[in-house]
């Protein structure tokens, strides 16, 4: 469990993704709409690059001083009457959450969307002690009803499902008998979940950003489920990844403004809620008890390394929405709850290189992700860095590749060898060349020509070098 989803191997998952026509059409359509909306929504901000620079500066400063800001946050949460639990591992976090729930004798838990609780497999932990955990984000609820189908996108978790499939799930699991019109489906979810909300004993949320200066946590939704989960239950547990923190409300403004735009192309989501401790004296609604669980789960291993900038991530999924690889293979191909470019960077770090060895290579390094990232994570560079670590430190590179690269480097830094190679290659390829193209090449060229032709190699008079030399000698 944890971040891993499914048991299939990488290329099996990819093949499944490529053959899923509905998913691919949905993803391509979503990418185009999201990109359009994102561009439209950032246009009112003026100089977007300035905003990115500011956001990067904020994230870098906060990470460099993370212990200080977490300490400040803790002091303020406690001052407000809340509890803070620091969880080094997923197990620590789940044990604490289970103990809070058990003390309350709570059976019905309502939950608003949270990636970090997915990451620590919190639902399963709570279910193991007999609790019913109800996802209230519409997309997450659909997946939960559909026998825990894993999410395929950070922001739109059920992007891979069509409305007919959703209608079937609703009717099979909840006796729904109306149409597949999204309006009717959503209304059914509203009515069903409203009852659950009113009976919820504990509300569990993630945390978009905690604010150190006031001990607040902020939650961003369009549906309003995070508000319900923090308005009605008597106990609130908020689980946050330790890096999701800003110094003050002034920085919160910047990151929320950029998150909403980058994630869904909105200037702000319908609801942005700042919660500060349990309810105050005289308040009627809101939790009586507030617990903040701060999760490490592998993050401190990233801190202080060349991958630290990955922790700048605000989980907006903008990189996913522009990624051409994600576009064709879909979220499940990444084998993790974190898909797309940020997933390819994070998974080998939060998981390991054995499990996710293909992901750093599942990128053409087109840098669309780096270009779009609101907090300026150099995503494609981090993917190259993963490759370097696998080659140089982990010893994971195939022997033949190592040999080839050593040979290449020798040739490319020794002109005589390089020239000999470029002169010999055409005659090696000669027999395979037909009408100026090679369609069924030998050795390393074989894979290339599996799907496309290769232009013939130039030789003799056709070579640039020959032409240029002759020219020097007065020829043309």
């Amino acid at each position, binding site marked *: 469990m944890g971040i891993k989803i499914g048991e299939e191997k990488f290329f099996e998952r990819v093949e499944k993704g490529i053959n899923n026509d509905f998913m691919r059409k949905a993803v391509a359509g979503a990418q185009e709409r999201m990109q359009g909306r994102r561009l439209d929504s950032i246009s009112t901000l003026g100089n977007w690059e300035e905003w990115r620079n500011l956001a990067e500066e904020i994230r870098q400063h906060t990470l460099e001083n993370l212990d200080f800001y977490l300490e400040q946050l803790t002091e303020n949460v406690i001052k407000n009457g809340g509890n803070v639990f620091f969880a080094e591992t997923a197990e620590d976090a789940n044990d604490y959450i289970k103990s809070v729930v058990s003390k309350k004798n709570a059976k019905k838990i309502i939950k608003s969307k949270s990636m970090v609780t997915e990451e620590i497999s919190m639902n399963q932990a709570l279910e193991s002690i007999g609790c019913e955990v109800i996802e209230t984000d519409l997309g997450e609820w659909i997946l939960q009803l559909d026998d825990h189908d894993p999410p395929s996108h950070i922001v739109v978790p059920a992007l891979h499902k069509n409305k007919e499939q959703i209608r079937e799930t609703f009717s099979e699991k909840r006796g729904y008998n109306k149409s597949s019109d*999204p309006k009717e489906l959503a209304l059914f979810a509203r009515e069903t979940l409203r009852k659950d909300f009113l009976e919820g004993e504990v509300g569990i949320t993630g945390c978009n950003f905690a604010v150190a200066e006031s001990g607040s946590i902020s939650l961003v939704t369009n549906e309003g489920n995070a508000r319900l989960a923090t308005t009605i239950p008597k106990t609130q547990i908020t689980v946050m990844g330790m890096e999701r923190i800003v110094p003050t409300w002034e920085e919160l403004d910047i990151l929320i403004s950029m998150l909403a735009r980058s994630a869904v192309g909105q200037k702000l989501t*319908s*609801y942005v809620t700042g919660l*500060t401790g349990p309810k105050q004296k005289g308040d009627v609604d809101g939790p009586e008890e507030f617990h903040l669980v701060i999760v490490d789960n592998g993050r401190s291993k990233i801190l202080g390394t060349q991958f630290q900038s990955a922790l700048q991530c605000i989980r907006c999924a903008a990189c996913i929405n522009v990624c051409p690889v994600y576009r064709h293979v879909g979220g499940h191909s990444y084998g993790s709850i974190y898909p797309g470019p940020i997933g390819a960077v994070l998974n080998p770090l939060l998981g390991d290189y054995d499990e996710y060895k293909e992901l750093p290579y599942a990128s053409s390094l087109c840098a669309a992700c780096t270009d779009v990232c609101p907090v300026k994570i150099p995503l494609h560079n981090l993917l190259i860095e993963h490759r370097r670590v696998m080659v140089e430190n982990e010893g994971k590179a195939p022997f033949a590749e190592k040999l080839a690269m050593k040979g290449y480097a020798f040739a490319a830094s020794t002109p005589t060898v390089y020239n000999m190679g470029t002169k010999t290659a055409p005659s090696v390829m000669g027999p395979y060349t037909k009408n100026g193209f090679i369609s069924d090449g030998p050795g390393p060229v074989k894979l290339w020509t599996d799907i496309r032709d290769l232009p013939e190699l130039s030789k003799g008079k056709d070579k640039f070098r020959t032409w240029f030399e002759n020219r020097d000698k007065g020829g043309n």
Partner: protein
Amino acid sequence: MTIGTAYNKDTFLDNIAKSLGRERKTIGVERPKWKHRPQYEVFKDLGQDELLDELEDQCGRIHTVCKRTQLTNLPHIVKEVIEELGGKSIVSWKDPRFEEYQLVEVFNEFANMDDNKFHVWDPEIGEENIKIAERANIGITFSDITLAESGTVVLFSEKGKGRSVSLLPATYIAIIPKSTIVPRMTQAATKIHQMSQAGRIPSCINFISGPSNSADIELNLVVGVHGPIKATYIIVEDI
């Protein structure tokens, strides 16, 4: 488990400091003066009237009905909007501004008609308020700060200003004094930052931009999921 406790803090934070390759920092970190400040440029030169135009424009994009009125005509407009939203049952904040803006009479008149129900949030009756709000057709609040750029009303919770009023009823009305309109979230954040420096901030601050919605099913936008299905802003020319 006592309330107001931190567990495992020191080992956890020591570990972070170790990863960062330095001693733990408990004091002395100053928030730097950020090199870039683009947030103050947005709508910088707009006057209150122009901000109002921007707000109205944005409402069109967030499925929110927007009405403008002079103070004198406010009761009439509120009555009209209540009728448009189907009347029946209303829950409102307990907020002196309703009296100031002469809306109490409209509410009384409404409450006295047919089977209508009108409830003012009453801390004395505790959770009964939530049940009433859950059954109500309309929730009404004032806006404490209003953000022109995003079409957002900012609500500070308090004893009489329950969170449920803007959340549980089927529809929502926000009364927006023109004087509360600022360019964007930046100005609200600055104010909350100052409140925080001066002491405690409200336990719940909601930034609401239109009705609840979702695009989780095939990216089709559906308005009204867990929160209100419709939202109406009534902007009052108070300055």
